[in-house]
C-alpha cells in the first residue's frame, strides 16, 4: 500500500470514527466545510488524531490550504513519509 492509499484509509477511518460522518460521503474530492459540514473544531479533532498517529505535531501553517479530504490525505501522506511512519501499521481511532 502506498503512502497515499494508507493515508486515505486512515483519514477516512478518523472521519467515520471521530466525527461520525457517513462513509459514503467521504471521497477525496469532498470539501470539508461545504460537503462534510465540518467546522474548525472538527478540524482540530482530526488533526489531534493525525498527530497522535504520526507521533509528531502538525504545524498550523500546513492547515491553511487544507480544503478537501484529498488535501488532508496529501498532508498526512507527506508527513508520514517525512517522519518515516508506516500508516498501515497504525490504527487511527
Amino acid at each position: 500500500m502506498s503512502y497515499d492509499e494508507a493515508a486515505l484509509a486512515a483519514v477516512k477511518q478518523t472521519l467515520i470514527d471521530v466525527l461520525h460522518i457517513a462513509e459514503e460521503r467521504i471521497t477525496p474530492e469532498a470539501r470539508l466545510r461545504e460537503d462534510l459540514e465540518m467546522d474548525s473544531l472538527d478540524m482540530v479533532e482530526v488533526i489531534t488524531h493525525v498527530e497522535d498517529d504520526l507521533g509528531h505535531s502538525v504545524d498550523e501553517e500546513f492547515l491553511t490550504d487544507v480544503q478537501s479530504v484529498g488535501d488532508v490525505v496529501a498532508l498526512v501522506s507527506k508527513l508520514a513519509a517525512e517522519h518515516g511512519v508506516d500508516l498501515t501499521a497504525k490504527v487511527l481511532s
Partner: protein
Amino acid sequence: MREIVVTGLGVATPAAVGAADFLTAQVEGRSGITEITRFDASGLPVRIAGEVTLPGELLLEPQERNKVDRVTQLAAAAARLAVADSGLEFDAVRPGSAGVVLGCGMGGAETMQDNFMAMHERGLAAVRSRVVPMSMANNAASWIAIHYGLTGPCTTVSTACASGGDALVTAHQMISSGEADIVLAGGAEAPLVSGVVSGFARLKALSRRNDTPAEASRPFSGDRDGFVIAEGAAVLVLESAEHAAARGARVLAEFAGYGRSCDAFHVTMPHPEATGAAAALEAALRSARLSPADVDHINAHGTATKFNDAAEATAIRTVFGTDAERIPITATKSITGHSLGAAGAIEAVAAVQAIMHDVVPPTVNLTGAEPGINVVGGSPLETKVAAALSNSFGFGGHNVVLAFTRA
C-alpha cells in the same frame, strides 16, 4: 413593568415528550421511572432512574449529535418543541431582541466522565479536543442561540435543583427590563452517568426501591425514602405581552411574578423551619399581587426526600395558614423523577398546563401525606386554576417560587 406571557411549551421528560402527551401522563399518573439502561448500574445501590426516550424526529443527526453532550440533545428537543408550539418565526423578529436562558446543574456530565475515564485508562490521546465545549454548563443555551440565530442575551444559571426556576426568573427580568422581547427559557439536565448517580446514592438522597421503579418516587408520602434521579429538559417561550399581541400569538398564561431567597444555612439540608422557602413564597405572592386566598394550586418541589418535603410543607403552612388545607398541591416528580436543573422548568410547564386546562394532576404513590396541606392523590382534580405557584429548592439553599396566572 412589562407583562410577561407564556406562548410556547416544550418538554422532554421520562414520563412523556411534548406538551400534549406530558399533560396526559400527568393526568393519568403515568410514571416514567424504570431500571437504568443508559449505563450498567448493576453494581450500584441505586439502579432506577427516569430516562427520556426521544422520538426519531427530535434526535439530532449522528454527525451533529456526536458534537454535543446528552444534555444539549435534550435541550435541543425541548427548544424545538417550544418554538413549534409558539408559532414563532425568528426571521420576523427584530435582531438582538430574542435571547436564551437555561438552568443546568451538572453540565455535560457524560462527556466529562467518559473522557476522564478514557484518559485514566488510555492516556492523553483518548481525550477529545471537544471535551471542554461539550461539557461546559452553557453549551445547551449556546446551541439553541446558534441554531436559531438568536443574538440577544444568552446565559445559563446554575443553582442545582432550583436552576430551571432561576432561569425563568432571569428571563422574566430580561424581558421586564426591556433587554429582550422574547426569551427561550428553561432547563436541561442529563445526570445519568455512574459517577453522578453514585454521588447522589452515597449522599443517601436517592430511593432504593430498585424492584418497584414506578412506585419509587413518593413525594409527601410517609414512607418516602429519597428522590429518583432523572434526565429531562423543558423550554418555555416567554414574550412581552405587547410582542405576543403584535404577532397574534396564542397566550397560554401570564408569568405574573416570582420570589427568591437563600437559606444561608446548609449546603444540602433545608432549614428545619423553612424560613427561606417561606420567604420566597411570600415574595412571589407580593410580586404577582396575589393574596393566599387567590392561589388555586401549588406545584410543589416535592422531591420525596424526608427533609425536603417536610420543610416544604412547613413553608406552605407558614405562608398560607388555613388556606394551606384548601390549596390543591401536586408533585410532578412522582412521575418524572427529579431532573435537577431541568425540574423547575418542567414543573413550570405543568403549572401553566394546570391553568390552561383547569386540572390538578395527582401525585402518584401517595400514602399518608404531610399534615395540614392538601396533596392531591389518586385521581386528577378538576377545579378552576386561575393562579398557580411552582416551587423549586436547590442544594446550596436556593429557593425559587414562580407565579403564573390566567392571561
